[in-house]
Structures are given as C-alpha cells and as structure tokens.
C-alpha cells in the first residue's frame, strides 16, 4: 500500500542528452498508472528510475512517503515485470518465485505457502518443477507475474510485459493483469506503447512525448479532451483527423474558432449526410479506400481542395486525407463523392503549434 509521487524528475545522461525533462506524476494508493508514448519518449527510462535501475539526476521520487532517490532497488519494496520476463533460466518455476523471498531471509515454510498461493492464482501449480525453457510464452509471463506478487511489494512495475505475446494472448493477459491488480489493490505503474492497452488498463493515463508529459488524466477524459495535437493523434485508433485552419472554408464554417490554428475531428464523429451542419464542419471528400472490419467500416477520403501540410507528428494523417468511421458493413464505394459532417460540439480546436487546446 503506497502512493508514488514523482516531483520534477529529470534524467540527463553524461553525454548531455536529456531523456526526462522534468516529470510530475502522482499515483494514488492502489491506482493503476499507465505511461504511454512512442518509442524513445522516455517512458521506460522513467519506470527504471522508479525501480532504481537508473539514477535520478534531478527531482525526487517518493514511494509511500519516503524519498527513494538514494535507495537500492532491493530496498524500495517494489517488484518489476520485464518485457523479456527475465526469468532465471537455471531455476525451476518454484525457485524463480521463491528466490526473492529467500533473499530476504523468509522461513522456508512461509516461502512455500506464498509460492503455492501465487501458483494457484496464476494457474501455474502443475508446472512448479519445470524450467522456464519448458514453458510457453504466456506461461513464462505468468511466472514473471508470480515472482512479482509473492513478494507482496508496495508497488508493481511493468515494463511492456505483453509485447512478446501474440495478439490473442495479449488481450487475455491484459484482462488478467487488470483483475489481479484490482484484487491485490497494489499500486502499479505500467509502461506500454500500445494505446489500446493503455486505455483499457489505466486509472491514470500519462501520455509522454520527448521526455515530457503531454497530458495526465483518466483515459476517457484524455480521449474526449486531448490537451495537444500529439495526444489527439496518439490516443485513439484510427487517429483523430487534424486539419489546419487557414483562410479556407473551414474557418468560416466553425463558430467561435478564435485563436485556433488546427481543428481535430475523431473519425467516429463524422456522419455521412447531405445536411449542412450549423456551426460544425462539412467536408467534401472523394473516397480513396475502404476498410471493412466487420462491425464498422473505415472510409479514407481525400479533400477536394488542395491542402498545405501541418506539422507531422507520429500517427498523424497525411495532409489532405480524412478518415471517417461508420458503423456496420455498408458504406460508399471507391471514387464516390461524399459529404462528411461533424457537429460543433465534436470539434477539438488547438493552437497553430498544436501545443494547446482552445476552448472546452
């Protein structure tokens, strides 16, 4: 039971490269915090700093009311699940889980109780005597989880624990992790680059980019009110449509767009209709491609006007291309001219540099 507080945490490497540029995050007791961002954004480094595997060059990290900057990983009362599981290959599953307990001088009887309990929870009981190489990827992942939970630490740290699993198993394990965390009610910090994983797991979502926090909040809040164009295009798949507001017909359509330079519209907020939106946006599109996913259909259209490019962020659409998400399997045909309309209250307005949200 502990909260984890990061106060203007910085990491500068000896070469002068600044990996973390001042991060403030407060994770409450028992909360599940997810750090999400593209590769190289510093999320793993930040997690390793919490674990004590990387030094902290500025600011403070506080676990359960104790500043841990100078404390060894072993004494921070944390457990970590690594991306490659990092199981001890020469030890049986039982010994892998017992290792951390024995190192702390726990009596063998207590070790046995704890390991067997964890094995039961994770359905590993029949394979306690096996070596890691005799296990499947999913089983290894569960052993890594087991090694973390037997210790009953204050904080769980997860470093992309599901990225080595296949898609189906990943979804199953995602749910498992969430259920387990709810039951144990242990504060957790989880790093991922998968925005879907981030959305589904998080109590608090921290979106990072370039060593900085772009936005902190609960996942739905972030989805509904992204603070920057980076968050807007990173969270949500397919990404939000971002279009520059220049002296074209868009600006004149939108009511109260003062100070805004970019408009963002989620693909699902468009309706294909002939009606004119009052205060909203209507785009004339030529259908270029169609993706059927079964329950919904993605329509890729190009705007009929020539557009100028806006700053390219990861996951952003190429300029002039618009994605429209419509329910069901029926939609327009390729080459057809359509009108995509979005109401005013579904528009996200940002400043021209994309760093700030304008309006509600």
């Amino acid at each position, binding site marked *: 039971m502990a909260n984890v507080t990061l106060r203007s945490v910085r990491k500068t490497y000896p070469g002068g490269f600044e990996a973390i540029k001042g991060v403030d995050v407060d994770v409450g007791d028992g909360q599940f915090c997810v750090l999400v961002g593209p590769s190289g954004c510093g999320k793993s480094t930040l997690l390793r700093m919490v*674990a*004590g*595997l990387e030094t902290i060059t500025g600011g403070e990290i506080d676990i359960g009311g104790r500043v841990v900057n100078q404390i*060894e*990983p*072993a004494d921070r009362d*944390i*457990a*970590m699940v*690594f*991306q*490659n599981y*990092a*199981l*001890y*290959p*020469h030890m049986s599953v039982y010994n892998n889980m017992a*290792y*951390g307990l024995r*190192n*702390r001088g726990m009596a063998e009887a207590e070790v046995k109780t704890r390991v067997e309990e964890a094995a039961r929870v994770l359905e590993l009981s029949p394979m306690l005597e096996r070596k890691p190489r005799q296990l499947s990827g999913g089983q290894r992942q569960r052993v890594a989880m087991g*090694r973390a939970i037997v*210790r009953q630490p204050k904080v769980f740290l997860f470093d992309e624990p599901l990225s080595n699993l296949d898609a189906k198993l990943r979804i199953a394990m995602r749910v498992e992790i969430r259920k387990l965390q709810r039951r144990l009610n242990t504060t957790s910090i989880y790093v991922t680059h998968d925005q879907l994983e981030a959305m589904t797991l998080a109590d608090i979502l921290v979106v990072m980019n370039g060593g900085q926090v772009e936005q902190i909040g609960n996942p739905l809040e972030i989805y509904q009110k992204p603070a920057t164009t980076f968050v807007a295009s990173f969270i949500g798949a397919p990404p939000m449509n971002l279009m520059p507001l220049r002296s074209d017909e868009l600006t004149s359509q939108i009511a109260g767009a003062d100070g805004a330079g970019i408009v963002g519209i989620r693909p699902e907020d468009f309706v294909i209709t002939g009606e004119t939106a009052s205060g909203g946006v209507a785009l004339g599109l030529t259908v270029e491609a169609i993706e059927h996913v079964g329950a919904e259909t993605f329509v890729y259209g190009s705007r009929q006007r020539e557009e100028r490019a806006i700053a390219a962020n990861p996951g952003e659409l190429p300029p002039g291309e618009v994605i429209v998400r419509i329910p069901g399997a029926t939609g327009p045909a390729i080459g057809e001219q359509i009108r995509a309309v979005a109401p005013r209250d579904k528009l996200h307005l940002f400043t021209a540099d994309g760093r700030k949200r304008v309006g509600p």
Partner: protein
Amino acid sequence: MQKQAIFQSKLLPYALVAPQLAIVLIFFYWPAAQAVIQSFLLQDAFGLSTTFVWFENYLELFKDPAYFAAIVRTFAFSFAIAVSSLSFALLLAVMADKPLRGSTLYRTLLIWPYAVAPPVVGVLWVFMLHPSLGVLSRYLRAMGVDWNPLLDGDQAAALIILAAAWKQISYNFLFFLAGLQSIPKSVIEAAAIDGARPMRRFWTVIFPLLSPTIFFLLVINIVYAFFDTFGIIDTMTRGGPGKATETLVYKVYTDGLLGGNLGSSAAQSVILMVIVVVLTGIQFRFVERKVTY
C-alpha cells in the same frame, strides 16, 4: 536444399582433398603408428638390436614408482593450473564487464599475454623470480621467504604453475567475458530487485549461468596443462630440481630423447594419446551437446 557440389570428373574431389589427407597421414597418423609399434619394441643402447617384447614396456611403466609419481604430479599440476587461471580470469572478466571508461583498452591489454609463446613466458618468469637476479625474488626474500626454486622442488612447482596459469588467463578471460556479456542484463536486474546483493547475485545467478563456459574451459585448460606446458617447463626448470616438475609429457622427452629408452618413451606417448582421446570424448559428449542448466 542440396549443398553438394557436382564434379564432372570422379577423380577431382579426391585430388582436392589429397593434400590435406597427406598432411594428416604423414604428420599425425604415421608418427602415431610409429609410437604404437615402438612401444612394443625393446632396443639396446646403441640401436643395434631390436626385440619385440609385447606389453613389457607398459608393464614396466606401471611397476615404476617414478611413473606413478609423474602421473600424480601431472594431475596435481593440471588441477592447480586450471583452477588458478580459471578463477583469476573469472575475477578479471567480472571486473572488466562493468561499464567503465576505457574498457575496450584494458580488455585488449588483458588479451595480449595469450600472444606470448610458452618458452618466452618461461624465460620471463625465470628472470623475474631467479634466486639471484630476479626482481621479485628480492621482495620475497625481504619478506622472509627462503626463495630458491633452483633447489626447492615445491617452489619450482609453484613457479611452473604460476607461469603456466598466467599464460592461460587471457584465453579464459576472453571466454568468460563473452559468457558474461551473453547473460541478459534484465536477469541480473531482476535479481537486484529480488533483493540479492552483488555477491549473492554472482553465486546464485551469474555463476550458474556461466557453468557451460566454465566446463568448456576446464577441459581446455586441463588439456593445455597436460600438453602445452612443455615449453614452459623446458625453459624454466627442465623438469628439475630432481624430478619435482617432470610432467608426463616432459618425461616422454627425457626418457626417450635424453635417456635413450625409446620403447618406454613410446609406451608413455601411447598412454598420453589415450588420455587425449578420453578428454576429447568428454568434451564432445558434454560440451558440444551444450551443458544445460
């Protein structure tokens, strides 16, 4: 996928492997066969008459307490050389594995001794530890050690072990460093988070994961100590004082070339050949199959 090359002529492939086969036959099988034949013969001191004596040379050897002593001595030497060079190399490798400045430089420097030829190693150590000339001898005597490897058999043995182990450290170091670097960093980090202090981490995680490397090097070092220390012994002590540093290989040389007892010397060579075959067998059986943990 066929990886076979197709030759037009049936003779060409044989012609191509012939030089290699010729070398192996002339320089390996021919002398080996000669040794086996010789080991069944008894020659007089002038080589004038030769008698076929069946296994008499072997029987004589096994009855000879000097030969038995040489066997014990060789095993003791091998064990001491292997253990000391392995443990010292492991210590160096563990230290060199740490991310320190200039690590490439001292890693390179640590490999250099391997390029020094065994007799040169011998000469080097002889000079440093010579009772009257040696730089190190002076310090030893200053510390109250009655240092004279030319007269004291145990000290001579220690000297040989020191020189032979020193030479092998570089080789072992290379393999240990590679072995250490192949251990995933996250496993060691996991052990650190699991509350294992550096020493415990080493003995419970790193050492067991290195066991395949250790076993491989143990066999290699024993073979080295058995056969490749000839140059060192010859330049340093010539098997003496007395027979204090005479190993099996050196005994083959002294008995055969210096003592003129070719039959016994040949029999000893054959026994050594058997030892090589056994060691190679062990290596193939366990090392090639990869030691599993």
